[in-house]
């Protein structure tokens, strides 16, 4: 009885990537293509001249309706290494503050001959609305990359996490991956879950108190744990999530201290995972809240490598979109 097409709006009629909006519904060949392409871009960043001409003459607009320095910067670096012109618009402080609607802003930017929008927005689904609008006004030559929408998705982060896991662990099928922390509010967690499923991950676990878990995770193929000691047992990959300051002392959690005791990743807890388990974090970290410094800086942490891989993955996404 569905009224709206269930066709994934990020794929064109031939199943090619037109926008990157979510890892959900992203076919395995597309994910593999992105990860393989990222691998080939990784060496570009090691060159003296860190540039390839793939996006020369193209304009990439960074539309950040929600503040973010780090993600915006990585997109900017990625676009510049592809030789694109990058225009940063801090929309959170300009047009929307003047009362302009989201779609009015988009219409204006279309007139400035954009080729790609990298969008971050505080409301889940905003990049879908933009993609749908572009189609309606006949401007679906412009690609949309979701750089984080509300609690929904952060697909480039999800893909760079997959890149990282593949880099260290090769095959997904025998892996046990645990995601720990505020999954309810995390777009990173959702993007990881869908990508892990598509990549055939052996076992996906979520570890958190009930106040930080959405319902129906089992339906997404996730095993839910409330106890770190059980949940971390024999894991190959531990993905820690950032706990936002505003969630620490309130109705969801009594205190950062109690949270750290139960869910903070310490060397003792990490010892329950496999000896070669890797520790990931999308950043920025709250040391002493979700992760102990000795783990964050320890030999199992691959957190800074994630950042490096992130640029290659974002280059890959933009490169593939521009070619489709």
């Amino acid at each position, binding site marked *: *009885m569905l009224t709206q097409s*269930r066709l994934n709006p990020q794929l064109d009629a031939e199943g090619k990537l037109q926008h990157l909006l979510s890892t959900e519904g992203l076919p395995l060949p597309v994910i593999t293509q992105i990860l393989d392409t990222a691998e080939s871009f990784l060496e570009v960043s090691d060159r003296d001249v860190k540039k390839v001409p793939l996006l020369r003459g193209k304009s990439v607009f960074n539309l950040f309706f929600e503040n973010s320095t780090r993600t915006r910067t990585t997109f900017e670096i990625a676009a510049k290494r592809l030789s694109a012109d990058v225009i940063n618009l801090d929309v959170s402080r300009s047009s929307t503050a003047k009362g302009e609607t989201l779609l009015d802003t988009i219409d204006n930017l279309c007139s400035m001959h954009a080729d790609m929008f990298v969008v971050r927005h505080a*409301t*889940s*689904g905003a990049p879908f*609305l933009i993609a749908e609008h572009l189609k309606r006004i006949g401007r679906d030559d412009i690609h949309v990359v979701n750089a984080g929408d*509300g609690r929904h998705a952060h697909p480039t982060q999800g893909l760079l996490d997959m890149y990282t896991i593949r880099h260290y662990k090769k095959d997904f099928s025998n892996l046990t991956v645990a995601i720990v922390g505020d999954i309810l509010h995390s777009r990173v967690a*959702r993007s990881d879950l869908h990508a892990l499923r598509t990549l055939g991950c052996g076992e996906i676990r979520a570890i958190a108190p009930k106040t930080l878990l959405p*319902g129906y995770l089992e*339906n997404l193929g996730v095993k839910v744990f409330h106890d770190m000691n059980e949940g971390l047992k024999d894991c190959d990959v531990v993905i820690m999530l950032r706990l936002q300051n505003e969630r620490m002392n309130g109705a969801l959690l009594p205190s950062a201290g109690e949270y750290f005791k139960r869910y903070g990743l310490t060397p003792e807890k990490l010892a329950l995972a496999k000896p070669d388990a890797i520790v990931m974090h999308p950043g920025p970290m709250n040391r002493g809240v979700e992760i102990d410094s000795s783990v964050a800086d320890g030999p199992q942490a691959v957190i800074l490598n994630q950042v490096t891989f992130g640029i290659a993955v974002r280059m890959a996404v933009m490169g593939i979109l521009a070619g489709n």
Partner: protein
Amino acid sequence: MNISIKNGRLIDPKNGIDARQDLFIADGRIAAVGQAPAGFVPEREIDAAGYVVCPGLIDLSARLPSLEAELACAAANGITTVVCPPDTRPVLDEPSLVERLIQRAEALGLARVLPLGALTKGLQGQTLASMAGLASAGCVAFSQASQPVTDLQSLYRAMQYAATYDFAVWLRPQDYQLAKDGVAHDGEMAARLGLAGIPVAAETVAIATLIELAKSTGVRLHLMRLSSAAGVAMVREAKARGVAVSCDVAAHHLHLAEEDIGYFNAQARFDPPLRSVADRAALRFGLAEGVIQAVCSDHTPMEADGKQVPFGEAEVGARGLELLLPLVLAWAREDGLSLGTALARVTSDAAAVIGRSDLGHLAVGAVADVCVFDAETEWTITPDAFTSVGRNSPLAGRTMSGRIQAVVAGGRLL
């Protein structure tokens, strides 16, 4: 005007009629069924061969921002009585406003408007509105529309006061705190899409509270727009215990579920939210068995920009007047119910909720509100063809049946 409607399939649920019979109207009332009264000379004759003839539909909830356009739309779609919630601008909390609304509607001569008065002034949930005055002005019951009464003592007093005069109180069963910030059913879709959820408990907690308050105050309670299986079960149980409670469901909730949000389709944002497929099945079953008495359109027209924003920022609701009859017919067809049972929920049973025994049926002496429609011919919903304000519908492209052929409202052929 004397009107005869001949050769149609007359369905009058209240009086148990589903047969080929003629209908005769005089002086705004039903004059006869079957045989013409002695000396009856029709000024207008409607040949209803191949069509269904039933009482004019009663819609228990429709917002009418542009009164003339929406009432014309209602009438054109077989709805001859519209209950209007009090969240108009200004709020229906003054008798003079109610009188003017009714007069304007009467002057238009389209569908009849039965307003719900505000339970509290400005729907603020604090000071009682002048219920007796509002009732004299024509309000059929009292409501908060979608606004909560946050202070339960105030609600308790309001119910006591209403019960003093045997006024009915119509409330939306949704705990405003549990629903706070929520934009979609707290189910699998919301989990996947990262939308803040409205748990079923927001409905069940409210139903439990309202039923207890209704029991202890003795007020007649009508619950507007159930959304969950658990909610239906609670009402079923309360009725079995003899509590004076009735309830309705919005037509869209019989046909849509959370999955229709698809990829953030803002057209599928409703209050209450579209819940699971199992909830939808329970609503359909509850409606069929009569635990839920009525289907309303919950008509909420809006300009396009109300939906041209991300899902969580979109306005709630859809246009419904055009679709009330088609959606009821589709429910009946899909669930194998008789037309009589289905039509009862938008005619006689709805009339019983508002306490009007002269409406919603076709016995001699009843108000002559009649709807003649073609139940067979199929058509496709195209919001661009909607004639009034707003094109908001999540059902664009669906195939429906039920085409209005003629409408008689208060004895006038429209």
